[in-house]
């Protein structure tokens, strides 16, 4: 190169993996959270827009039954306990605890997906009945896809942790970010729960 080249420092001393904001994939996860968060916020905006079109809400049927919804919310909040422990274990790179907790979290996910099936069964409206039915199904379906994709990724990560690839430190970074993403999944569920179950009853 035409310009004089001087060596200003040695990068070899740097670590090869890091947690939290020091990890590149953390920023990717955060960016996708912004995208999905934006999508949920706009879907909620559409819900309020359609609600303003009607004089009585829900216009035709009863709101979704409370039991499956509340059960789902309780369990998903409960799942934050193993989730936090998992994140701590991952960041302190204790492989045995991570293996135990991630399997537990996958079981939580499975249970939640089953309860979600009951939620769909007790939604008390068809998507094609009216705009209320459409937006309710849309919100629940969007969140179900959200949970399903995260759960599937956790299962794949669990399988990976049991192979010899699971010994590398970078996998702990992935587990930590997977736990962070699970936290995002139930944070987005709370406003949707309020819209689907509480708004029709109390507004």
């Amino acid at each position, binding site marked *: *190169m*035409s*310009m*004089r*080249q*001087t*060596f*200003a*420092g*040695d*990068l*070899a*001393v*740097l*670590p*090869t*993996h*890091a947690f939290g*904001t*020091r*990890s*590149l*994939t953390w*920023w*990717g996860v955060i*960016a*996708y959270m*912004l*995208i*999905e968060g*934006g*999508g949920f916020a*706009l*879907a909620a905006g*559409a819900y309020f*827009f*359609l609600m303003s*079109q*009607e004089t009585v809400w829900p*216009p035709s049927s009863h709101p979704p039954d409370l039991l499956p919804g509340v059960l789902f919310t309780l369990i998903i909040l409960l799942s934050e306990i193993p989730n936090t422990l998992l994140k701590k274990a991952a960041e302190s790179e204790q492989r045995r605890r991570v293996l135990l907790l991630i399997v537990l979290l996958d079981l939580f996910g499975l249970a939640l997906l089953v309860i979600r099936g009951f939620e769909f069964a007790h939604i008390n409206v068809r*998507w*094609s*009945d*009216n*705009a*209320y*039915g*459409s*937006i309710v*199904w*849309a919100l629940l379906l969007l969140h179900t896809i959200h949970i399903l994709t995260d759960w*599937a990724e956790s299962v*794949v990560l669990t399988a*990976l942790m049991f192979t*010899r*690839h699971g010994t*590398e*430190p*970078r996998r702990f970074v992935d587990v930590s970010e997977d736990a962070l993403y699970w936290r995002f999944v139930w944070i987005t569920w709370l406003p949707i729960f309020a819209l689907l179950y509480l708004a029709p009853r109390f507004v």
Partner: protein
Amino acid sequence: MTATEHPADVPRDGPELDGPELDRILSETWGDKPGLIGWLTTVDHKRVGKRYIFTAIGFLLLGGILALIMRLQLARPDSGLITADRYNQIFTMHGSTMMFLFAVPVMEAFGVYLVPLMVGTRAISFPRLNAFSYWLYLCGGIMLWVAFLRDVGPDIGWFAYTPLSGPEFSPGKRADFWAQLITFTEVAALAVAVEIVATILKQRAPGMRLDRIPLFVWGMLVTAFMVIFSMPAVTLASSFLLSDRLVGTQFYNATEGGSALLWQHLFWFFGHPEVYIIFLPGLGFVSAIVETFCKRPVFAYPIMVAALVTTGLLAFGLWVHHMFATGLPRLGYAFYTAASMSIALPSGVQIFCWIATMWDSRPRMEVPMWWVVGFIITFVIGGLTGVMVASVPLDLELHDTYFIVAHFHYTLIGGAVFPLLGAITYWFPKITGRMMGDRLGKVAFGFVFAGFHLTFMPMHFTGLLGMPRRVYTYPAGMGWSALNLTSTIGAFVMALGVVLFLANLVRSLGNGAIAGDNPWGAASLEWATTSPPRPYNFAHIPAVTSHTPLWEESLPVFSGLRVEHRELVLTTVVEALPDVRDPSPTPSIWPLLAALATTGLFIWSIFSPWALVWGAIPVGIALTLWFWPKSSPDTHQEPVIE
């Protein structure tokens, strides 16, 4: 330093491993397999960036041909050249191709190619996701154009207002292909936006603090955030439209509680940021070109960055100015008039700063600078007509007339395509190693500039004389005939200019003058690499000491990155201090296969809702195998995934 790692035990770049020996090893580590396999599996941001740009320019030509057909049809009143149905398909395809398949992708493609080079790193942040994004974008474009050539092209306008695009008034699968194109291009654009944000925030060369980031990179960062926040709106809207048309949901059905305005709100909440997503990289191009040819940093750098960020924020607050005629409360409109007017301030300030930079130095009027001057002359007219249509009483007359067609062509072609053609001329030496012809470049500029104004200036008057948009023909005796004929002639002059530009491009590929590493004497880091850059970009990661690194007397570098494995350095977000050595993913076929599986899922879901269930399985498998780490030979080395 973790226990498993001793700096001395693996070969690293540095004073003792340098020059051709280092180049051989790094090229082998960062290179692709030869031939087609290498081409399909590459994750090199330069190769993916080049094919992104090449495909986007291909769609520009297709969209241009459609524009010429439209101009032929409108050349004279009551012309029977094309039937109404064909014209409606053509104007929808022209709009959709230009907006979704050319403008946003080409700007992101330049970001994909240039941002890693300009921030001084060896690869884009999620290279496999980058390859996946290109394949998905290509499949989306092919799907739409195959549908169009089989007479199943959308005929609902690039904005697809319901209920015309709804199940009752758009029978068949035409509107579905349009809505699914949105899904394709959104996923691709969001993927690239995520990569650009992560690359800019985490992979800047050590020392490149926030106030030393080149203005083009700032432009791409603001654009990426605008993509992230605006595209979910149209993805949601088009998914609602698809479900309305497929399974009978009632989102936009006024009789069942839905509303046609829900579509307009969701679409324009994305629509207006979209045009700024196209426009901001254009501003980045202009800043880069002006800085180089004036041999002076752009005047008032912090104000320019503030203007970019303000434009990005304001863009989300003024979408209702597209809906002034829909009868919403007039007080709300007053707010949106003020917001729409206020966005003229940051643009006006930026125009001032560029001109001040030129005035305060001796600008070398090479071809890129001609495009910048053409940009300023044209875009300012577009900006000022934009101020006019921001006012409610004026917009109620001007809305949906040819005045608006003139306005947005002045802002989009003037504001984004002119800087783009300047940028192609400016970075052609870096991308190909050869210079573009100077004389032919200026002739092409002349034809495009003259043809553009001959085409779109008369449209202001056609609009004032009351010609509405999207009409496949018009009666004689309205005073529009002569103006329309002028526009048609202008369109062909401009087309000739574009052909000349491309001829110059193709000719220079073969026998343009050999360009060195830094033919224009520019200041930013991409000119520190060879032309075209090696697969690994930088032999040693550069250290940045100022806002214009290459204009300093020396370019300090860092040593210590591994050479047998792809590795780059992550730095802290604000101060850009070296932080972590991060492995970079290796080439893989799975992004292509995942894109094909996703394409199958998307096209199948046009015809049956069960596609979401069964179609997701191949996509899941492809993604799993994409992420599954390849087993590496010696255990204590860190294999790379993602």
